């Protein structure tokens, strides 16, 4: 019940905000802020309860199921496990920040804006909770369309191009996923006679390996375009740089994570053999992305575009980690999803704050901002350090875990990925140099942050440091889910590492209880 409440509250909150904006803009903002914060509050309570509870046998914490279109085996099935819980925390956390950060930035169509914002969040929440593939696809679309409007209406100078590009890339790949979902549905029905889209029942499907490869590729297409993986990343720099600040924040912080989530939730458990088969390629392409994204980030002069390419680079770690198929790397991937969401979101907020003051994203026209905005400078320093993987901040834990885990699977690729850390250093320091150091370039008065902006920044900084020093609560929360995803019950050795070849032989199916 709570689970559907999350989604419904966003949808209703969005409509209320839209209506309220007809009378009072501030009220609309407050409505959406309260909606997100309320949900954040609830999910924090859920998390704290979960952490205090004993480690229960089942990885699933909450389950909610209603028949929707029973004739086709479509159910309104939501379920929450540790992984989804963490993703919801991230969603609501960044959601609250995106409302706060739009407070002054968005001045026209305020009601519609908040409607779109909350509906995107509703879609994302649904994606992280849906345990029915049809429902999953439904939410996958729900998050796409309001996002399209966020970019096109409130975006920057070239927003039409960016919005359409974003839409076409996502839609085309989503279509492939729909085909794959239907394929899986019919294959399963052929074998068992039951027509169902239910995740847990489909997990048991025994798919002929030829078909399985194609079905897997269909799912994979949607996820690696969202993630994104080279060469499907080119929508991202455009969409990120043209979207309004909150749009970039949600794109980088959440939408990319739905791709990573899809890999973990669907690709690995549903198509294990196929995933193992493509693992070397997937890892290689991920590692290539790490380096390629970093080099491109270095050459950009548009601050938001630069940060967008760093996302391409960081998402390479997700590919590397997911396809290493071991506990350490996968836990690293979960950490990376969260910490990258926060740190990159933070960099986009920083770019937005600067844009509000000087109305440009061109870093060649920035410089020396430390003098007038020391508070922002300190925060920017911390975000840049997070981005280059400085120990003590969350991203280090994530990337180090991925690399330690990946080392068990592949040496060469791990070495190249580690070299990516040097490239990350180069572009991160370039941001600092161009924006905050050097001679003060802008002559207009730059006000340091307002209270609202400071609040946002402090929350981001504290959460990054907290994740860097005390990542264990997060790791504990995701462990049961990751265990289920990897099936590391019997065949793991004490390091939690497994030889993928063994998995294919000892493959066991698990059933939903």
């Amino acid at each position, binding site marked *: 019940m709570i689970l559907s409440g999350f989604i419904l509250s966003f949808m209703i909150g969005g409509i209320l905000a839209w209506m309220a904006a007809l009378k009072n803009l501030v009220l609309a903002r407050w409505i959406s802020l309260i909606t997100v914060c309320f949900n954040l509050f609830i999910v924090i309570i859920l998390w704290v309860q979960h952490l205090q509870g004993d480690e229960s046998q089942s990885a699933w914490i909450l389950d909610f199921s209603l028949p929707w279109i029973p004739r086709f085996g479509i159910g309104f099935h939501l379920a929450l496990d540790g992984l989804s819980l963490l993703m919801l925390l991230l969603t609501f956390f960044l959601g609250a920040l995106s409302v706060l950060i739009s407070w002054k930035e968005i001045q026209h169509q305020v009601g519609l804006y908040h409607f779109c914002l909350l509906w995107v969040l509703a879609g994302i929440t649904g994606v992280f909770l849906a345990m029915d593939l049809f429902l999953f696809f439904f939410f996958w679309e729900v998050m796409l369309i309001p996002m399209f409007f966020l970019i096109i209406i409130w975006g920057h100078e070239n927003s039409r191009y960016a919005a359409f590009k974003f839409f076409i890339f996502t839609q085309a790949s989503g279509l492939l996923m729909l085909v794959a979902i239907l394929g899986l549905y019919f294959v399963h029905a052929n074998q068992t006679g039951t027509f169902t889209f239910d995740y847990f029942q489909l997990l048991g499907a025994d798919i002929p390996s030829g078909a399985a490869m194609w079905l897997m590729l269909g799912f994979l297409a949607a996820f690696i375009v969202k993630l994104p993986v080279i060469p499907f990343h080119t929508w991202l720099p455009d969409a990120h740089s043209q979207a309004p600040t909150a749009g970039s924040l949600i794109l980088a912080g959440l939408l990319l994570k739905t791709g990573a989530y899809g890999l973990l939730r669907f690709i690995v458990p549903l198509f294990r053999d196929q995933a193992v088969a493509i693992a070397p390629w997937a890892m290689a392409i991920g590692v290539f992305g790490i380096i390629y994204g970093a080099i491109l980030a270095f050459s950009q002069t548009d601050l938001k575009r630069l940060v967008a390419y760093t996302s391409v680079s960081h998402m390479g770690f997700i590919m590397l980690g997911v396809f290493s198929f071991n506990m350490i790397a996968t836990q690293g991937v979960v950490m990376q999803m969260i910490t990258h969401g926060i740190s990159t979101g933070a960099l986009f907020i920083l770019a937005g704050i600067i844009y509000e003051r000087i109305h440009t994203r061109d870093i060649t026209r920035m410089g020396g901002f430390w003098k007038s905005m*020391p508070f922002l400078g300190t925060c920017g320093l911390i975000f840049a350090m997070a981005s280059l993987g400085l120990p003590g901040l969350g991203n280090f834990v994530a990337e*180090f*875990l991925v690399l330690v885990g990946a080392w068990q699977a592949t040496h060469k690729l*791990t070495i190249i990925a580690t070299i990516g850390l040097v490239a990350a*250093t180069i572009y991160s320091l370039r941001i600092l140099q161009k924006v*905050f150091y050097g001679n003060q370039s802008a002559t207009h008065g730059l006000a340091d942050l307002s209270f609202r902006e400071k609040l946002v920044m402090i929350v981001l900084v504290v959460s990054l440091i907290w994740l860097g020093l005390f990542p*264990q609560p997060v*790791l504990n929360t995701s462990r049961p889910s990751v265990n289920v995803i990897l099936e590391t019950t019997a065949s793991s050795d004490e390091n939690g590492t497994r030889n993928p070849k063994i998995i294919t032989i000892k493959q066991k199916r698990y059933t939903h209880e």
Partner: protein
Amino acid sequence: MNDLLWLIPALPFLGSIILILAGTRLSKKSVPLIGVGSVGVSALITLLIGYDFISSDTPPVIKQVLWNWIDVAGFSPSIALHLDSLSLVFIFVITFIGFLIHVYSSEFMVDDDGYARFFAYLNLFVGSMLILVLADNLLLLYFGWEGVGLCSYLLIGFWYQEEKNGYAARKAFIMTRVGDTAMAIGLFMIFKTFGTLNITDIQLQAPVMWEIGATEGTIIAFLLLGGAVGKSAQLPLQTWLPDAMAGPSPVSALIHAATMVTAGVYLITRMHVVFELAPTAQFVVGVIGSVTLLIAGFSALTQYDLKRVLAYSTISQLGYMFLALGVGAWSAAIFHFMIHAFFKALLFLAAGAVIMALHHEHDMFKMGGLRKKLPVIYWTFLIGAASLAALPLITAGFFSKDQILWLAWAGEKGNVWFFLVALSGAFITAVYTFRMVFLTFFGEEKSHVTHIPGSFINIPLIILAILSTLAGFIELPHSFGHFQLFTNFLNPLLPATTLQSEIESTEWMIQVSAAALSIGGTLLAYYLYVKRPSLHAQFKSAVPQLHNFLLHGWRFDSLYDWVFVKPFVYLAAINKNDFVDWPYNALVNVASFIHRMFAFTQSGILRWYLIGVVLGAILILTLGLML
């Protein structure tokens, strides 16, 4: 008392946090109170713990687990501290010299806008460095390792408005990060091999796991060496250190002389078990050390900038430490680290005072005659310089360097080449050291003294000068006294160096020749720069290429520029618009081209439509007839 161990790193961190948060709102008086005070209390606790440590019969090992950091499937490093005699030496140097440098900075930086920011970074540095040497596992060590790198970056670029300072800062960070990458890969390998990153466990398991010369052990040793080479500015990653002098002088003293740059020495010493099992890697450590000490020594001979001489000298002295590590003279390396920390911090601080007194003049050839104007600086600088040049018997540097020379010759892993390099290095050291002294303090006055340092600058100098002299007497060679307090203190932890079997009683010969060379070097410098100052100018104009080659640090920068920097920048620049986007754009262009073609046919002109209908009909009829 031992329970207070965690406070030693925690206090500087706390100081840093307070200064960052409250920074600009604090008064000029309360900033140093927090900044200096936090390190001062840390130093005090270190002394107390150190007293307990020394006075107990069996040297204890203090472990303190603060919390579990990460725990995933057997990968479970914790935030835990480990104090033994080796880390005690390091935390003593870090907190005590750190404290003196903080005191010095409270006067040196007082007029700077970023007064609070400076102390915040400096405190952050001290905290990270303490974590580095107190870490009980390699991941926490890596935490400190990267933390000090960050602080080094921040402090080199402290005066951020100058473009070149930012460049130097980035260079330092990126180059050390190259080494860190090797080290990180080393950690992955270590974890895969041992299933843990705990240092004590690794030391216990390594000899069981590997025989001497095992490939895996050798690779790991080389990877760790990569990290050490980056941090300690050894060949081939040494070029960042001279540029790092862009930072304020106290920073050069603390980070780029006394503490951070010795992290590599610490790492190798800490992992000495691994290096002993990998003789090839250990030999390479020695080779790197000896080559670096010569290269940097020669470069130091030609510099104009007072601080750059000291920077090259630091690289060279670190080369000595690496040489010592390479021959397995573990405690000799650590002893030289400590003594070097004293005299090099002293030299940097004194140089900073000189530069401040001359209103930011760095060029030694524009100084001179400061002996009378700045007597305290002169005398302390002279004592430091004597120690660096290892003038016999009266200086601490003599005793620490002598030990390295002796073991490079007589140690089991030593050889005549290591020894000769070290010996000629001693001569070069004496020459460039006293070149510096004579140019700065002797001769005629060329720049006007605008600022006389006060007591917060003088007192740390005097204390360091005393240490640079007296600290040598805690470790006396075999030939006189054979009083080995320091070695004995480290002994159970760091094994004594085995000597070659037939070498006996040549130690005094080595001492005499080293002493003769350092005195000779001093005299040569006197001759060249006081007696016949025209001579060195003649030399310079006789071989200008050689002079420039040495001045620019053997042109390593140009080499790296061509091999790494330029291709990277070029590659990035040509692909700024991401060629992956081309096929997509091509698709769009083709689609819109076809669209335009079809749109063209829909012209609204009836004649065209009729022609179209007729042509179509003819085409269909023709086809129908032909088929």
